[in-house]
C-alpha cells in the first residue's frame, strides 16, 4: 500500500473504526444515488408482489401490506460510493414475515428484488432470511421518495445498492441472476467488509 504524500485524513474517532468497513468514511447526512429520475409513487398505485419464477404467488395493496407484522431495526449502512452511516433506524416487514403471510418457504436460494422504475438487484435468500426487511419508515417518518419510498428493501449488511429503492416485489429465481447494477459492472454479492464493489473484486 503506497502512502499518499501529505495525506493524513480527517481526524477520526478511532472507537468507531470497528464499525466502518475498509475504504468507507462516516457520513452524517443521507446522500442519494439512483440511475434515473426519482419515481413519485402514489400509495393508491402501490402494490407488492411475491413471485416464484414468472408465477405471482401473492400481491398486497398498501393497506394489506401495512397490516403485516412490523419490525424495527437499528443498523449501520454502507454505500459503495464509500459513505457509511451508523445507527440508522428503520421500520418495516421482515422478508421472513412476508413469506409466512404468503404461506411459502423459500423455493430457491436466489432472489431478485424488483422496483417500480424497472430496476432490479439480486440477493441470496440466505442474506434475506432473518436479516432483511421491506422498510416503510426511516427515522420514525414515512420513507421519503428520494430514499426509495413508499417502500424499499433493506439488506443492511450488503452494499446499499442491494437495498433496492421503490420496491414492488421479490422474485425467487432458479439461478443467481444479475440485476441492473450487477450487469453494469458491480459485484454479484457486494460485501462491504470484503470490499466487493465491482465485478472481479
Amino acid at each position, binding site marked *: *500500500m*503506497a*502512502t*499518499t*504524500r*501529505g*495525506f*493524513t*485524513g*480527517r481526524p*477520526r474517532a478511532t472507537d468507531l473504526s470497528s464499525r466502518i468497513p*475498509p*475504504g468507507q*468514511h462516516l457520513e452524517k447526512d443521507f*446522500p*442519494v*444515488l*439512483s*440511475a*434515473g*429520475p*426519482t*419515481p413519485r409513487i402514489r400509495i393508491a398505485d402501490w402494490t407488492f408482489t411475491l413471485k416464484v419464477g414468472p408465477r405471482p404467488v401473492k400481491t398486497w395493496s398498501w393497506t394489506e401490506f401495512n397490516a403485516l407484522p412490523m419490525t424495527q431495526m437499528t443498523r449501520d449502512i454502507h454505500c459503495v*460510493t*464509500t459513505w457509511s452511516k451508523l445507527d440508522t433506524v428503520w421500520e418495516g416487514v421482515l422478508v421472513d414475515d412476508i413469506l409466512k403471510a404468503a404461506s411459502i418457504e423459500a423455493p430457491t436460494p436466489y432472489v431478485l428484488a424488483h422496483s417500480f*422504475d*424497472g430496476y432490479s438487484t439480486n440477493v441470496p435468500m440466505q442474506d434475506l432470511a432473518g436479516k432483511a426487511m421491506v422498510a416503510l419508515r426511516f427515522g420514525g417518518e414515512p420513507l421519503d421518495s*428520494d430514499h426509495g419510498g413508499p417502500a424499499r428493501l433493506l439488506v443492511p449488511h450488503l452494499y446499499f445498492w442491494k437495498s433496492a429503492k421503490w420496491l414492488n416485489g421479490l422474485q425467487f429465481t432458479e439461478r443467481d441472476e444479475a440485476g*441492473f*447494477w450487477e*450487469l*453494469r*459492472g458491480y459485484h454479484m454479492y457486494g460485501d462491504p467488509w470484503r470490499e466487493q464493489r*465491482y*465485478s*472481479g*473484486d
Partner: protein
Amino acid sequence: MSEGSVRWQTATVIDIVVRTPRIKSFFLSLEHPFEFQAGQHVDIRLTAPDGYQAMRSYSIASAPDHGTSIELAVERLDDGEVSMFMHDVIVPGDEIEVRGPLGGHFIWSVTDGGPLLLLGGGSGVVPLVSMVRHLKAANLAGSTVPVLLLLSARTWDEALFRDELLEFNKEMSGFTFVLNLTREASARGQDFGRRIDAAMAADVVKRLPGPPVHVFVCGSNAFVNAAADSALAAGIPAETIRTERYGG
C-alpha cells in the same frame, strides 16, 4: 467492463489547471492506460501513513480517445476530506492511486445516436463535457448528432469549461450550448438566469431538431431532482433519462 480494467494503479499528476474559483482540473498520467466511454468515472484512493484510506469517485472529463492521460475536474468543498486535499496539497509530480474505468450506465457514444439532451449543474458538467468532446472528435470524422448542453452554474466565472463550450457552440454543427446562471444575469440572449424548471426544459428541447432520445442529468442531488423532474414535466419519458448524483 472487463475485470482486468478495475485494478488499482498508480497515476502521476502531470498538470493542475485552475478552471474556476472552486474547481481545478487534474491531469493524471496512467501507469496502465485504459480505454473508457464518455460518462464513466474513476475511483481515486489516498492512503495516510497510519493506513487510513479515503476513496472517492470522479468523472473523467477527457474525450474517450484521449490516450495515456485523463483529466478530472474536482470542486473544492469546504470540509471535504478528499477534494480539499486535492486542491490544497497535491502538486504536479505527486502520485495517487486510481482504478477505472467504472460505471456502465451513465455512458454515451456517438453510435448511440441522438438527439441528445445534457443537463449539468456545477461540476456535474464533467461527464457531459466528456460526451461533447467525444462528439467533437467524431464530428471531425464526419458524424453529426444533434446535442444540446444546458449548464447551470451560479455565476459566469463559475461555469466550468465555459470558454471551450462557447467555442464548440460556434464551430461544431449540431451542437448547442445554453448557459443558466442562478445568481447573476446572463450575458447572452439565448441563456437563462433562474433555477431550472419545466418551462426551461421545454424551451431547450424545442431547440433540438426532434425529441431527445437520450437525456443525461448530472450534478448535486438537488440539481438532479429539479432537472429530472423538469424534463419529465416537459414530456420526456422517464426511461430516456439517466442520472448521476454527486451527493450534496
